[in-house]
């Protein structure tokens, strides 16, 4: 059963739904940010409510800011910069999208490859991955003001912090914030697609509250696969499992990982690769978990959406494939 929701503007290359699926933001090749809204929560008809040129180069990714911080999006541009735009109004009739913060990018500096927001203990964190292999974590001190961001941490995606390497060329990176809400640790997974093998494999970073720093607590790669470029990472919602599930996509396929919740003496979490799924020739671009964390939807080079599930024996398999057709 299918239903067309809306038609995209010409030149659209990126898109994102907000937390409740009532607002849709798209970015275009000429730097235009377009917003579609559904007025009534029970209807599924969407209308274009805002269209603004936010940059000179194309918007390669759009990410919504968590709703506790307003109606705002971050746009990543093809020139390596990104900026945060927010919908505000002095009175309910005059709604407009305004620029809150711009993180400039230029060809000399490292370019931003991916960003992700996370909420932890009343504070909004912004994780950014750069083409030089650096991960930067920003924090928002004032929850009502998206203009001021403080750099909280800066590190490389390596387990051993003494590792040194020269110039890094990274094509892409993928960050996935642990979606669990509440008083647990804040953590995220990140993987790179770069020319430095050490950097690539997906690592899980956790914030150590006592020492106020980010620590790598798990590496999601088997010994032989550590240098594999990572295309995309997705952390599953956990509605009560005693372990976490993270999916990672590399050139070898889509891997499903179980991560234990208790760390060993050296602060590492147990990890187990429970499945390696192949289906998208050439690799997966995007992976999304459903609300229960039981079904993984993926898209890839083969132009199909594939749905993956585990059976009662814990065996992961392709449940269905969605084939676009005119």
């Amino acid at each position, binding site marked *: *059963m299918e239903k067309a929701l809306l038609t*995209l503007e010409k030149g659209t290359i990126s898109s994102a739904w907000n937390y409740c699926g009532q607002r849709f933001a798209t970015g275009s090749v000429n730097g235009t940010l377009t917003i579609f809204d559904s007025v009534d929560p*029970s209807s599924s008809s969407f209308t274009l409510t805002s269209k603004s040129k936010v940059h000179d180069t194309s918007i390669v990714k759009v990410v919504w800011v968590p*709703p506790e911080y307003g109606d705002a999006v971050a746009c990543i541009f093809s020139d390596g910069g990104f900026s945060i735009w927010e919908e505000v109004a002095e009175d309910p009739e005059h709604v407009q999208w305004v620029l809150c913060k711009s993180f400039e990018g230029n060809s000399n500096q490292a370019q931003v490859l991916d960003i992700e927001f996370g909420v932890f203990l009343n504070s909004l964190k912004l994780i950014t991955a750069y083409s030089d292999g650096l991960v930067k974590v920003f924090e928002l001190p004032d929850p009502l003001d998206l203009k001021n961001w403080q750099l909280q941490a800066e590190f490389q995606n390596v387990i051993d912090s003494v590792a040194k390497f020269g110039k890094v060329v990274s094509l892409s990176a993928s960050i996935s914030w642990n979606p669990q809400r509440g008083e647990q640790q804040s953590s995220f997974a990140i993987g790179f697609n770069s020319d430095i093998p050490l950097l690539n494999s997906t690592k899980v970073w956790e914030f150590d509250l006592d020492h106020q720093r980010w620590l790598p607590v798990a590496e999601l790669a088997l010994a032989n696969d550590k240098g594999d470029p990572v295309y995309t990472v997705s952390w599953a919602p956990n509605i009560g499992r*005693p372990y976490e599930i993270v999916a990672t996509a590399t050139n070898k396929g889509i891997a499903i990982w179980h991560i234990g919740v208790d760390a060993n003496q050296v602060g590492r979490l147990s990890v187990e690769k429970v499945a390696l799924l192949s289906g998208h020739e050439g690799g997966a671009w995007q992976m999304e978990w459903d*609300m229960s964390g039981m079904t993984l939807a993926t898209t890839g080079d083969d132009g199909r959406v594939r749905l993956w599930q585990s059976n*009662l024996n814990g065996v992961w398999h392709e*449940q269905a494939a*969605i084939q*676009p057709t005119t």
Partner: protein
Amino acid sequence: MPGVASNSDDLALIPHSPTNSHTIALHHTVKPPISRLSIAWARGNSLRVAVIRKPQAGESDDEPGGQVVEVKLGVDEADIYEAQWRRIAYGSVTPFAVLQSRKNLNTNAYNADLPAYVIEYSREINSLLGNQKVLPDPVIEDPKTVLQRVDEPTFSKAAWELMEIFFADKQSDGWIPERLVDWLSDYDNLIHGEQPTIYSRLVDFQTELVNLQAVEEDPKYWDVLSAALAVGWLDIVVKLLRLHSSYQHNQIGSRETENGLVETVVVLVSKMPRLRPNLSAGKLGECFDNKPDFVKAWEKWRGQITKLDCSAFWLQCGHQDTREGLKKLLQIMLGNASVLSATTFHWVELFIGHFLYIRPFTVGMESMYNLAQKCMQFKPGSSPHKLMELLNGILGENTEVVLAECSRSFGSWMITHAIELLTAGSTQADILLHEERNNLGGICIEELHRLVYAQVLSSHALTWQIAPIYLASCKKQGMGLLEILLYKQPVGHNQVLLKNIEICRMYELDNVGANAMKIAGVHHWKHGKKGSGVFWLQQAQDEFRLNRIAQQLFDFVGKSVSDESFKQWEGLIELLGSQSKAAGGLDFLHKYRDFKRSLQQVTDIACIDAARKASEALILLMKNPSTPQRFWLSLLYDSVKLLNWKERTLLNVPQTNLLLNKLQELSMARLRPDFIEADLPPQALSSVRLALATNLGRAILEE
């Protein structure tokens, strides 16, 4: 699992075969070339796919850049329309919830009333599935209408009744065969596939009936008669027999013997002993609710048939078709297996024939299962059918097959509700369904199906509200999913927000409710509805944001506390109401307003009471940790006239020391780079310090 209706081998405890994935077509109107697909899950199990087109050079700007299409996965119940499905979904909530609470009342000991509760539940659910159409009684009954349907059966209803017969209805254990006879008479039309069924033959014959002068001349008449008799549709058999031309007035004289034979068969058919407590109105046969009486009647009945079979009257019957047709009916009643097999079409029809005429005492699942297997061998051509697969699973006592079949063919609603029947039906099923499994993250199969069903309900704006009832019955992961479901509601809409809060209160999810109010508060605050913004943030008890709002209010009124700006924001604070006392930031604003009011009343030396009040307010403010530091100096500077009160000191020694400490803290803070200077005259600090020192001296002397 999450509602993807497909070949769900995942429900069977057998290893997965890689071939069972299926392809869903996603229709869109985007012109090729497609550059990529972007996916996102909406609520429940709706997947939104953005089909993004690669722009081509030289195209007009009107060419769309793609399309977003929503696919609802796991939308099942192919024979039930959406509105009707919602009616069933809503209707089944109460029976389900009542059964759960009854089960929970008595969890440890064996609950003797449970079977009664389960059958009550089953009947209520069953009544939801029935699409009773009230037909007006015909003024003149058409004798040629042999088939009459009052309700429109659905596959779901048929499946439910099968499970009710075998699992829930313990009282009719003794007459399961007769219940199956009834079941088939209600649902034989559903098993019609490539092969005909008795029902389909009857329907065909009914259309021809109008044009027939002498029915007995048509071989089809005798075929459908014997077929209907084989499956026990006695009322139809009698009705058809009475259409025999020998009943017609002009014929009765010449065909007396023939008519006598027909009528004798009619009587025998109507008097067939049935091992069941009762029959519904219009159905024929003589009921016996105990075996000895039944056996006696059965033997007598069979004796009568044999006697008729050997009677000399047959020789006097001149109509060959009638003679042969009636003889065939007698053979069926005598239990002739080959005649039964020849007159039925589907194996389940043969199966029912066996119950009625060959093995009326069949009991126990094993013998039923063996009989079913035998019938299938006789009727191998029967194409696979979901109801038959289900029946086969039930007869084989294979809970896994029943589960898989329910899930695959009837969807998540069916399996979630049918599990109640399954667990009531057998201990083995109960263990299988309640065993906690590591592979499922520690939940049991029963919980898994409730979670999946709740997710299906969550997909729709009109059904998500009932998902919490099913989630609440999930011991381990229900609340986790409910939290996520609630978090995904569009709380910017007031009605959704209120519903959300109500659900959070009901299930004690205070944090989730507070978060929803926080989201609404921030949304309103940022969209020019400052009053509602503050209201919801207060409801959420979000002191962190309220403090920031309080600070924004200071910024708004300006750094100096002139009388004019005081008036401006005093109104705003009043607007925010009195409930804000719980929240630190606004609490400060209220205290500050009290302070400023008292201070304004201090116009001359006679206002000693006002001055005293003002100084008390000052101390309260300075003690309050939520008073922003950058405001301290302004407060103190405003209070210089209180410190220099001529008559007597208004502040005692400890109070003055408190203020001095604060002043000291402030001097230290000024060294930090992020310190914000108050917009005050340059000598403000020194004049406050001098006033405090003087006051301290006077206070010491006074004490």
